[in-house]
């Protein structure tokens, strides 16, 4: 096969793959908008659900989802940033680096339902916390931890060593170098990772359905140990009433809101990434 022909074949394959991926995404979003827009209204976004979700709005589901993701963010962010800084600045041994990398990648590969089962056994059964949004947030934090660690570690590793040396040559201690040089860069990467992680966490059903959410009858939680309702579990409940057209319509509307929230996190991460890539390290 000639070189020109090979180039054309590969180009066609790559373009086909790209167009197919984009087409699937566009089709999904278009369907969601087409089916879901009918349900969206101010009342839908600001009122409580009624009759197991087939009537009313999704206010408490939005609040529940945001509470879970906020809790996951608060729990995971400092730990992930700390791990990334420790890995890049303190771990000298290549063997230990490889071991920690393997652990982090393995954690990333664990199916989300396993996190849910772990939360159910450890928190709900052993620690007797009961079903609560706080436990759900912790489990989601564990789930998104690798994403944030990897993003911040990558950001820290991209800092040229000359910055560390120049700072040390000015008399800065290792901790001062971390605080003044490494941390500002790492926190940007961690923030990007956090937004990507939250985009994943907000759409998860499996890890939280046994440990953090109730399908109906919940409002705004007043303590750490109360369940919430979330958008993914609400959509699951509505999908089980698919013979009811109103429930199905609400399911599409809830899905559109959920995907919009995912998009907000993803696009914020993209904007953030572009902003900090302009910092000339």
């Amino acid at each position, binding site marked *: 096969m000639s070189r020109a022909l090979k180039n054309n074949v590969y180009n066609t394959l790559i373009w086909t793959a790209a167009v197919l991926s984009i087409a699937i995404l566009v089709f999904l979003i278009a369907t969601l908008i087409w089916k879901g827009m009918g349900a969206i209204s101010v009342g839908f976004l600001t009122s409580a659900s009624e009759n197991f979700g087939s009537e009313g709005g999704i206010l408490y589901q939005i609040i529940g989802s945001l509470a879970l993701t906020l809790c996951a963010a608060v729990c995971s962010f400092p730990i992930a940033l700390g791990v990334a800084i420790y890995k890049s600045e303190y771990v000298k041994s290549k063997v230990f680096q490889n071991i920690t990398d393997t652990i982090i990648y393995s954690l990333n590969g664990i199916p989300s339902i396993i996190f849910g089962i772990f939360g159910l056994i450890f928190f709900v059964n052993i620690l007797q916390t009961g079903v609560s949004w706080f436990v759900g947030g912790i489990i989601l934090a564990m789930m998104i931890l690798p994403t944030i660690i990897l993003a911040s570690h990558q950001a820290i590793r991209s800092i040229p060593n000359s910055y560390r040396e*120049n700072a*040390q*040559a*000015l*008399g800065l201690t290792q901790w001062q170098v971390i605080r003044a040089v490494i941390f500002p860069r790492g926190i940007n990467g961690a923030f990007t990772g956090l937004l990507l992680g939250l985009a994943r966490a907000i759409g998860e059903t499996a890890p939280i359905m046994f440990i953090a959410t109730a399908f109906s009858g919940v409002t705004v939680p007043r303590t750490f140990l109360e369940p919430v309702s979330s958008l993914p579990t609400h959509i699951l409940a509505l999908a089980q009433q698919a013979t009811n057209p109103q429930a199905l319509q609400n399911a599409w509307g809830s899905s559109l809101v959920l995907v919009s929230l995912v998009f907000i996190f993803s696009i914020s991460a993209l904007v953030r990434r572009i902003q900090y890539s302009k910092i000339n390290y």
Partner: protein
Amino acid sequence: METNTARKINAGIEEEAEVSIKISNLNVFFGVNHILKDLSLDFQKNKVNCIIGPSGSGKSTLLRSINRINDGTEKLKVTGAVHFNEKDILNGVTNLTQLRKDIGMVFQSPCVFPKSILENVIFGIQQHKKLTVSEKQDITEETLKAVSLWPEVMDRLKDSGQSLSIGQQQRLCIARTLATAPKVLLMDEPTSSLDPVTTRVIENLMERLKKRYTIVLVTHNIAQAKRISDQVFFMCNGQLIESGTNDMFFNTPKKEQTKSYLKDETCVCR
């Protein structure tokens, strides 16, 4: 005192020069490689002490041993003594923060932090002590004047330091080092990435700075060493081959290796 002074013969006139840094039997090993071999030399106060030699001769390693910036490098072992302020700085009790404040270092390529010009100047000093707004302004003005950068940037101190030209960035790095009030300036080929005109600017700066600081300069550039050095140290293969005053070293070198290096920059000591 014998340890604090060194005999210096310059143009037939013998005078005494105060020693700023005294290195005795310094050996540096990296794993099985013997990088610096039993070096003993004195850097004189308020002079430009120039270390020359081919690539891989250990010039930068010597410089980096003086402010112990290589500490923490795996498999690195240093023996011998480096006396500064009458203390051996290689011993375990040395306060590295104070040492590096006293012995500042300027690197080969300017490394300007992604901050404003003002923030770059005070970057080091403000880690050591809390500064008021007026102190920050004063230190910035004083040090930028010392490196002749003030007239060029005085009306744009809040601009990014990285918006400056490479030559200006290198002067900014020198100003940042001066802000920590060092006694010695280690300069590791500070002009290697600069054009000839900017190189002359930095050289003129060194001429002025030596009145207040001891300068230890590593350079590949023999012509530069000839232009600005007071003392010259020629290193090859981790050893000190010859040293002397500028006049002695360039006009009447004693060792064959030195003559060969000055003639065609080849090193025959391996």
